[in-house]
């Protein structure tokens, strides 16, 4: 275990990228997920169609493929750049790929939440004279969100773990699992203790998220 702690700077640096990937991807996935859900339940057939096709395509593609598409396809092959420094350029492409992918799961959770809201809530909103967007924003989405806090916690945990794909899929973000592999490759750390160390590092991130979200979901529950 000593060799692991000798390299603790690299471990911390790795996890700092993991956390940054998670925070930005979580934010964008949430926003995009809400937008996709709003489109999915909208009265405009075109919006519904676009959202459905997007979610069904991306959700059913392997994350590795999505990230490869961002990294090799958009970044390398087409030469699209998001930042002057390589580290941040690949970082932002990874965030885009992770958000594109995770937003589908946010959207599906949210949609299942909307399905649990009694129809009368939307009818009452319409009867008051709220527009479609208003009733979605003020009545339906806030209630749906509260019912899916638990599932959204699982999506966030999956996202934290999925950030590890960002280093293999042609993007090479220096996140935790990448650091671990580099440490093995360079022979500076014994395999087993390093594994355990990084595994614990991930648990430190994911376990509190699980507990936080189940606490939130109880606290925010809407009584009917």
């Amino acid at each position, binding site marked *: 275990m000593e060799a692991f702690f000798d390299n603790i700077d690299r471990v911390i640096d790795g996890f700092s990228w993991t956390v940054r990937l998670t925070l930005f991807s979580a934010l964008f996935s949430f926003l995009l997920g809400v937008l996709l859900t709003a489109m999915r339940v909208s*009265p405009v057939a075109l919006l519904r169609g676009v959202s459905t096709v997007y979610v069904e395509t991306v959700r059913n593609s392997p994350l590795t493929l999505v990230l490869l598409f961002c990294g090799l396809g958009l970044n390398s092959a087409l030469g699209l750049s998001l930042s002057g420094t390589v580290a941040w350029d690949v970082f932002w492409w990874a965030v885009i790929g992770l958000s594109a992918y995770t937003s589908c799961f946010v959207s599906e959770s949210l949609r299942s939440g909307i399905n649990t809201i*009694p129809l*009368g*809530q939307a*009818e*009452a*909103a*319409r*009867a*008051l*004279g*709220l*527009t479609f967007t*208003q009733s979605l924003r*003020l*009545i339906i989405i*806030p*209630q749906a969100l*509260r019912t899916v806090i638990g599932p959204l916690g699982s999506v966030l945990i999956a996202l934290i773990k999925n950030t590890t794909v960002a280093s293999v899929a042609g993007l090479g973000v220096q996140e935790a699992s990448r650091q671990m592999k580099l440490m093995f490759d360079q022979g500076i750390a014994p395999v087993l203790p390093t594994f355990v160390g990084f595994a614990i590092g991930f648990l430190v991130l994911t376990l509190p998220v699980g507990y936080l979200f189940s606490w939130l979901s109880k606290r925010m529950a*809407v*009584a*009917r």
Partner: protein
Amino acid sequence: MAATPLVVLENVNKHFGELHVLRDINLSVAAGEVVVVIGPSGSGKSTLCRTINRLETIDSGRILLDGQPLPAEGRALARLRSDVGMVFQSFNLFSHKTVLENITLGPTKVLKVPKAEATLRAWELLERVRITEQAKKYPAQLSGGQQQRVAIARALAMNPKVILFDEPTSALDPEMVQEVLDVMTDLASEGMTMIVVTHEMGFARRAADRVVFMADGQIVEENTPDEFFTSPRTERARDFLSKILTH
């Protein structure tokens, strides 16, 4: 009949698949009038009520509010709905908002009334429906009767031209029916235009200007409550009344 019809239905027809739920409905409701719609279950009376603010679309015919045909959708429809209050059988208060927020939501978001003004008015309305002490609670913490009175206050907050009541007491425990009917009776006597679908014959006798009897998607009979309850003209109405008045 009074001179200014506020709500007019002309030859309205509606189907649910094979079922012809509204058959050539013609109905005109004057401003200030209280019309009670009664009839057996499945007669189409709830559907009729819901077509008036277009929660149900119609297949043919016309519905006019204040002389204007109902817009099909969009903002124009939303604006029209803000003029038509609705009270549902299952209350449908917004479960994630407090009683006070339920009442101020419509005025602030639809009519763009300043928050402070809407809140002041909400307190007045809560007083009117006798429920001020529950203002900060959530709907689930209230009894059914209290929820329905809040729903009435929520409808009133929009200063509607007419309020539709879709079986407002059918989901209530028996001991809570009266408190809701009392509020409705007050409203009726204050001159609110009301279209009430109900099974409460006592309310119909006491508060209605006119009783509309529906069966099988048609308006079978229309009369003053006195005439209707003492000497119904149709066999269908006599049969219905004999069944409900003898138990």
